[in-house]
């Protein structure tokens, strides 16, 4: 079999596997629905996610260690991940192929020409990693003040290493001066930096990481589109707030292939850039067997990476598509241990100016975002995070915006945030209680257990619901429901309701009611013509028949200021009958007045019990702006947001 056919099979296999993992991330009982499928495997294989979260959190979380496999593959064989495994890459390659089937050779050669702009992706990578490393960098800068001992040892260590290994032309005096100046600056900087401001950690790698982008797009755009068919791939038909932007990015990334094939891979992809850097020592590499080349340039015809195999091959750009080997009619192109006979370029062309600009932009971005205080005092109470979410700054240093939680959520209550949490919170999960089949089910822990980076911690049911060993800690609260008394039917409209109270899943309920009897506006002070023990006839005949027979209406005889109420069982235009088992006492005399009352139960939220699941908000019949709404107040993840004094 030809090598490129093996590659094609591999691409189809991994793309299919990827789509399969997206499709099966469904809570359900059908055989294919989540049964321990390793649905995060592609995200875990992505070493960019592992490295970026390592920088932002100091940890490599669970499955992210898989990134080591990809790194090893790349170090040994080159960017095979890009050409053989990456599902996003396969998609680009396929679209590029479709759009160029009838292109002339000269067009293809132009398409696959190496362009210096391909270096942009390295700057993107450096920029995003700089954002991720911001918190760590602040800790490093302030080390001489926070722990002088460690920084002193580190400084002496560096001195010793330099003393032992000193090379080059600099005199001992020069480097000694350099070290002393650097150390002095370090100490100075440590006293300039403040660590008590808003925490500076933001992981934005997920915006452009191809696997996160692909997961987000498939989960939140493609699968919901399929839900409109009879495929029934989701637990219920999926809707996602603000999905247009995610869709626009995805479609734009795909359409750019019409302009230049694998546009995203060549110019944007930060993962490709990372793997490009790691491929520099690849043991086997693409290249020419000898310099004896007629320069027909056919090797460039289908070159996916635009790595200029014709000239000095740029190894960091090569995605190992192997098309050049297939296209070379002279048997010159090969994959072997020796470098290309016509020469090779292993490093991207980064300029010092470009690097410094990128680093400074990255270093400035996080503090600038911090000025908005979205993770601090200006936190947005409308941003309700899933149960088990870490405190906002920590959350943002882990969340890769992949949308796995939004896909697995059985009730479709999880949605990609817009700018509610600031720019840094774009596409991170939030709860929207108006969309979906219910609020956040309080016996569900799906999101925390699928989250590939533990931005939402994996929880047990006991922890979520505050049982057994978690009894003292109590249930996880994601917010608190607040009754809007101006919109609530029993509070403002004189209508019985309490749907919120009935649906409150907490036991004992977090919503209680107080009973009130309110006079019905158009049935007050009705003049009595005659009354028996269980009925009353009025002088007027204005009552709508059986309007008051619902069981919620009562009579109050004149002068009786609310102490005794008699339940109405039937009424006509002129007559009202009450429950005969509890007759009038005394019977209202002719000429007296009777009020008709409605019995209302007005809801109250007990903030000590409310967990913020939002089932009440979802069920509230005041559909526009719900009359009971959940905000993040009192959420467990941040003590500063607590509403109640803990005793």
């Amino acid at each position, binding site marked *: 079999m030809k090598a490129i056919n093996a590659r094609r099979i591999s691409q189809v296999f991994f793309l299919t596997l990827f789509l399969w993992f997206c499709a099966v991330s469904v809570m359900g009982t059908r055989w294919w629905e989540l049964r321990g499928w390793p649905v995060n495997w592609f995200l875990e294989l992505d070493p960019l996610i*592992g490295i970026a979260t*390592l920088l932002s959190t*100091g*940890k*490599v*979380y*669970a499955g992210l*260690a898989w*990134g*080591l496999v990809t*790194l*090893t593959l790349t*170090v*040994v064989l080159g960017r095979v991940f890009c050409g053989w495994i990456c599902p996003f890459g396969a998609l680009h390659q396929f679209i590029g192929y479709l759009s160029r089937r009838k292109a002339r050779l000269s067009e293809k050669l132009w398409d696959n020409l190496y362009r210096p702009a391909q270096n942009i992706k390295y700057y993107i990578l450096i920029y995003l990693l700089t954002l991720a490393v911001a918190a760590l960098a602040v800790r490093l800068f302030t080390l001489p003040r926070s722990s002088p001992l460690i920084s002193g040892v580190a400084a002496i260590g560096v001195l010793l290493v330099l003393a032992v290994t000193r090379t080059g032309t600099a005199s001992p005096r020069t480097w000694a001066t350099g070290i002393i100046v650097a150390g002095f600056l370090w100490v100075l900087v440590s006293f300039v930096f*403040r660590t*008590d*401001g808003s925490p500076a950690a933001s992981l934005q790698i997920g915006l452009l990481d191809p696997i996160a982008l692909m997961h987000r797009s498939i989960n939140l755009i493609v699968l919901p589109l399929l839900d409109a068919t009879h495929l029934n791939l989701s637990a219920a038909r999926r809707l996602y707030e603000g999905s247009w932007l995610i869709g626009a990015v995805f479609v734009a990334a795909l359409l750019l292939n019409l302009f230049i094939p694998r546009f995203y891979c060549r110019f944007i992809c930060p993962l490709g850039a990372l793997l490009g850097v*790691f491929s520099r*020592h*690849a*043991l086997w590499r693409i290249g020419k067997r000898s310099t004896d080349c007629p320069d027909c340039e056919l090797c460039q015809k289908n070159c996916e990476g635009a790595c200029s195999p014709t000239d000095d091959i740029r190894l960091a750009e090569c995605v190992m598509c192997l098309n050049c080997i297939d296209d070379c009619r002279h048997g010159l192109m090969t994959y072997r*241990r*020796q*470098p290309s006979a016509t020469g090779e370029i292993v490093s991207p062309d980064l300029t010092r100016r470009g690097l410094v600009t990128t680093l400074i932009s990255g270093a400035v971005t996080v503090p600038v975002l911090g000025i908005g205080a979205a993770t601090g005092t200006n936190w947005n109470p409308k941003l309700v995070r899933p149960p088990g979410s*870490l405190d906002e700054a*920590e959350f943002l240093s882990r969340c890769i915006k992949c949308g796995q939680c939004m896909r697995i959520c059985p009730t479709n209550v999880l949605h990609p945030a817009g700018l509610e949490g600031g720019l840094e919170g774009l596409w991170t999960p939030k709860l929207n209680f108006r969309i979906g089949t219910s609020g956040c089910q309080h016996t569900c822990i799906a999101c925390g257990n699928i989250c590939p980076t*533990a931005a939402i*911690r*994996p929880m047990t049911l006991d*922890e979520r619901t505050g049982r057994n060993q978690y009894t003292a*800690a109590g249930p996880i609260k994601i917010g608190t429901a607040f009754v809007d008394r101006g919109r609530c039917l029993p509070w403002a409209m004189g209508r019985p309701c309490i749907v919120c109270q009935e649906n409150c899943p907490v036991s004992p309920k977090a919503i209680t009611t107080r009973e009130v009897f309110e006079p019905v506006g158009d049935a007050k002070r009705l003049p009595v013509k005659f009354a028996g023990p269980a009925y009353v006839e009025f002088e007027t005949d204005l009552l709508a028949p059986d309007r008051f027979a619902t069981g919620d209406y009562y009579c109050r005889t004149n002068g009786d200021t609310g102490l005794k109420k008699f339940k109405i069982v039937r009424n006509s235009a002129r007559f009202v009958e009450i429950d005969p088992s509890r007759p009038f006492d005394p019977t209202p005399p002719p000429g007296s007045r009777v009020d008709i009352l409605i019995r209302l139960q007005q809801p109250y939220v007990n903030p000590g019990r409310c967990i913020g699941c939002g089932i009440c908000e979802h069920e509230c019949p005041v559909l526009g702006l719900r009359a009971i709404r959940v905000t993040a107040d009192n959420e467990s993840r941040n003590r*500063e947001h*607590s*509403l*109640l*004094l*803990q*005793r």
Partner: protein
Amino acid sequence: MMRSESGTRSLQRRQFLVRLAKAAGTILAAGGITLFFHDREGPRPGRQKQSDLRLPDFSVQPAGPRMAVARGADRSVTLRRAIKAVGGIERFVKPGDRVLLKVNAAFASPPLLSATTHPDVVSELSQLCLKAGAEAVWVSDNPINDPQSCFALTGIAQAARSSGAKVMVPQAHHFQTYTLPNGRLIKNWPLLYAPLKRIDKVIGVAPVKDHHRSGASMVMKNWYGLLGGRRNIFHQDIHNIIKELAMMVRPTLVVLDGTRTMMTNGPTGGALSDLKSTDTMIVGTDQVAVDAYGATLLGKTAGELTFIAKAEAEGLGTSDWRSLNPPMI
């Protein structure tokens, strides 16, 4: 020809071996880092580190009367007399002592409105302490309004500086997590600790004010200004928090200024009509008794103020100030 080809080959072999070494190094380093930083469990819910911060007992052995009351409209005069009556400042401040005046600087309002500790009291007290040989006198509080404005507009900063005391306007890094031993409310709570650090004596200095939630704001309530964080949630249990604050600080001396008592619209006041001249300065070592006396200036009894009974039950002092036989000057 043959020779040069074999030379190239050996060069290539060497290059390959170098690459092999670098590749192996990269993989080993990546593997080592992954292994070292690997985290199978994920972050656990933050178990709060118990704070082991302790506040020392700042009180001195009682030798004279535990409380004195001086009458008069001139704060400097009444303060001097009252302190003399409880044994003189020398009894409380020893040469070389570092003294903290915990004032009430809660609001950015002028001294005329008596919502805050009067600058005359601050300057007289600072001078007395310095004359007694104090090495340094610090003035601090964590106000409710903007801190800089509070210290400036109340006249406290000016009074302190001109009499040789130093002002510490609180900043984020001045706070440390504190847990009150045997406390139920003050647990792992940010405490304005920087001004208390390396301090030998603490003097609480507060005006007598109406307070809508607790009934009165006097010397015990004044310690609220040592708390940071979202301290306003303690209003859900105001009397117990005042009791715990009194448990937290064992002061050297407390000064309660009842020269102009805020009778209504407390604790902010805002109009001269909220004030009443009561011409009283109370000084003592028993903060419960001092507050109990202060209640009478508000036309209340100690029994009406739940926090006084709670503090007394905790053994922090007596609400029966008469039993202390305070000199009335």
